[in-house]
């Protein structure tokens, strides 16, 4: 047993050494030869399945491993850690190389931290509870009472694009929005499409996705990027790997696998 283990470790070290010889991440990660990736706590479907990113199941977990592979890391060299949203954007040293938890890339955030190229562009979708008598048009949306998660870019979309008649209520996370919907305090909430589909199908009883905005219809669709510390030398390496994944179709394949093009969600007129 020990022998097998030793041989496999040596073998993987040789393999890694071979990869590192021409890899771009040499000396740029916080622990040599390892890639430390942070995600949310807890991390949700469809981004990470069962709150276990190390399984590689779920869109972000799968992208993370594919990305690490392209950068020249072995599967075992990926270390997972957890951070909150605030921990990721506060100044100072970080305990991760990359942070993947559906961070929308925005200009202001870009001043404080670095983002990779986007690995996903999410359309916004409207989650309601019981869509009877509701149609996917702006006149209907204006009349609804909205709830939004504070840390997402959904808030500006609700305020500027929809501009509802009564001011929206604002919550800390998806669970609280769903809870407010169950309590009948809000009629509708705006999420990115994958989140809306998941919440409507699994979390919110009787939840339905009323409609979606096209990603290019919004002036700035939500691009998700991996977050790094400002001026992180690893960015070049991550971006090169992402560009390669976009070119060879592997990123699109992961997206198709985990974020199936949703059927039956109409476009909002």
């Amino acid at each position, binding site marked *: 047993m020990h022998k097998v283990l030793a041989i496999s470790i040596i073998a993987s070290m040789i393999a890694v050494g071979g990869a590192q010889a021409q890899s771009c991440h040499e000396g740029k990660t916080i622990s040599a030869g390892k890639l430390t990736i942070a995600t949310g706590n807890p991390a949700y479907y469809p981004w990470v399945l069962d709150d276990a990113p190390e399984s590689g199941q779920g869109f972000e977990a799968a992208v993370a491993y594919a990305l690490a592979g392209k950068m020249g890391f072995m599967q075992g060299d990926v270390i997972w850690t957890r951070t909150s949203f605030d921990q990721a954007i506060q100044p100072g040293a970080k305990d991760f190389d990359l942070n993947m938890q559906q961070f929308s890339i925005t200009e202001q955030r870009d001043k404080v931290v670095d983002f990779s190229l986007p690995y996903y562009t999410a359309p916004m979708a409207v989650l309601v509870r019981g869509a009877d008598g509701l149609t996917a048009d702006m006149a209907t949306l204006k009349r609804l009472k909205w709830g939004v998660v504070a840390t997402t870019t959904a808030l500006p979309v609700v305020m500027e694009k929809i501009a509802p008649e009564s001011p929206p*209520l604002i919550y800390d996370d998806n669970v609280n929005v769903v809870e407010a919907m169950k309590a*009948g*305090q809000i009629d509708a909430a705006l999420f990115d499409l994958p989140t809306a589909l998941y919440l409507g199908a699994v979390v919110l009883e009787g939840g339905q996705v009323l409609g979606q905005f096209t990603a290019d219809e919004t002036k700035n669709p939500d691009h998700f990027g991996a977050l790094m510390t400002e001026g992180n030398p690893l960015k070049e390496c991550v971006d090169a790997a992402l560009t390669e994944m976009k070119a060879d179709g592997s990123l699109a394949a992961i997206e198709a696998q985990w974020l199936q093009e949703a059927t039956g969600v109409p476009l909002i007129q």
Partner: protein
Amino acid sequence: MVNRRQAYEAHQRRRSLSIAGVSTALVLVAMILLVPLAPGWQAVKASFFDAAVFAETFPTLLQAFMIDVMIFAWSVPLILGLGLAIALARGARAPALFPLRIFGAVYVDVFRGVPVILTIYLIGFGIPGLGLPRPWNSPYIWGTVALVLTYSAYVAEVLRSGIESVHASQRNAAICLGLSERDTMRYVVLPQAIRRVVPANMNMLVALQKDVALLSFIGPVEILRQAGIYKSLLANFTPYLVAAVIFLMVTVPATRYADYLLNRDRNARS
């Protein structure tokens, strides 16, 4: 004409004042010189002390603070009323009213023992979840209820200590005058008790003013939430500093006033 003793005391006063002044100045200078020497100071300064962000977010945050003030304003009379009722229930002496005493004791134990934020979550999401129609399921209503329940437990304890601090001779005197139990409470005990605990209750109200911000967890967009929104929009923590400054503008005078009342009270008794 100053005698020797007065001269000595004046000298001592001057000496202690100058020592206090010098030591304060030293601490300030040390802070101003040493903090910027920290390696991360530039990043922290950009994240927490951005003057442009401060100016940009201040007016909106001040507006959002009005919501806190509003919730505070309608909570206070409810808290004082319910707190007094609970205090009286705990002090009920008639054997027939024993269940009332038990209720009062349990109520105070429960609502003092549960963190405010939990009470807010449980009541703010739980009761509307029973299926109340709008507008009766508003987070403003049930958030207020949560605050009132928690704080009236504290205020009840403060009032009870006030009631018990009224000397027994006062009650006896009232009985001698032929006042009923109710009248004794109303005209003799409560006026003294309430006056005695005004400073302690002022402290409660300062704490309440800060805890109103916790209602943001169940939806209302008040100052804390508005600051959080700016934080995510601008990726900068300065809005929190703005919110803190706005709170201090209100709470510092209030605490000072409470201290003044306490001191006046103490001086009157000594």
